């Protein structure tokens, strides 16, 4: 099982905003425990998907040189639930970014399965504010594994579809 909670980037404005989609599927194991007989996408994994959308956007802003981790969920509000067959849209915007941390706002909207044929507009599901830390800048001197753990194979494949050069600016000693 891969820990990737977005399926595709639909928009990517480097340094500013991004949008991704997540399809909720009956083939996802955890739905059958959450809850038995009543599968519902856990809110925590929706938040994780938004955090991944924002985290990749923020990481790309430093050309994948910073290790970006979710440090704080400042606020989050949900107004409904997501079910198998739904498609979730995650829209994120960078509100602030500096060497130490970044703040992003996220909105989730939902296209319900029965609406898909009927051209209904996405309905709001949740909104949140997230804080990310740039690990290297905040924990100087501690050792981390080499390379950037944000730019996994899965994330690279998503970025390749939406950005030229997979979002990496050409540098003389680029890696990964």
């Amino acid at each position, binding site marked *: 099982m891969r820990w990737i909670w977005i399926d595709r980037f639909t928009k990517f404005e480097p340094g500013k905003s991004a949008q991704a989609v997540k399809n909720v599927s009956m083939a996802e194991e955890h739905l059958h425990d959450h809850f038995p007989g009543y599968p519902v996408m856990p809110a925590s994994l929706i938040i994780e998907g938004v955090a991944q959308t924002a985290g990749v956007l923020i990481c790309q802003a430093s050309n994948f040189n910073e290790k970006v981790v979710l*440090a*704080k969920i*400042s*606020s989050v509000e949900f107004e409904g639930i997501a079910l198998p067959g739904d498609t979730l849209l995650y829209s994120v915007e960078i509100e*602030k970014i500096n060497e*130490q*941390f970044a*703040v992003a706002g996220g909105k989730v909207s939902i296209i319900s399965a029965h609406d898909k044929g009927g051209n209904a507009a996405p309905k709001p599901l949740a909104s949140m504010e997230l*804080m990310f*830390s740039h690990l290297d800048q*905040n924990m100087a001197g501690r050792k981390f594994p080499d390379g950037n753990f944000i730019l996994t194979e899965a994330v690279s494949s998503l970025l390749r579809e939406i950005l030229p050069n997979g979002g990496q600016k050409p540098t003389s000693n680029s890696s990964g």
Partner: protein
Amino acid sequence: MGMSREEIFSRVKETLVEALGVDEDEVVGSATLTGDLGAESIDFLDIVFRLEKAFNIKIPRGELFPENILNNPSFVNEKKLTNEGLAELRTRMPHADLSEFEANPEVDRIAELFTVDAIVRYVEGKAT
């Protein structure tokens, strides 16, 4: 800028309630950020960001919450601040009330300097 102390206090209070998720009535002038209000290191960054937005000011890194005092060997000796360390602290934190701290300048007590009042005084200083 012309904001009264009450107005500044009220806005600082809102900022801390947003950043730390505490109740309004917990945010009194003498409340310490870490001890009384439960702030952690990531919260300090959040607080600085929100204060900048709320008051439309720029807070350079280390100005509100000074860094690099505790890891300087001429400022600390046997877990207490040296006279040099105290002098440095006085220069870097004109917005803090050091009177109680100076009596027993233990490194572990530095967090007690970061009170709501200290933030209010800092903002007042920026506004003039």
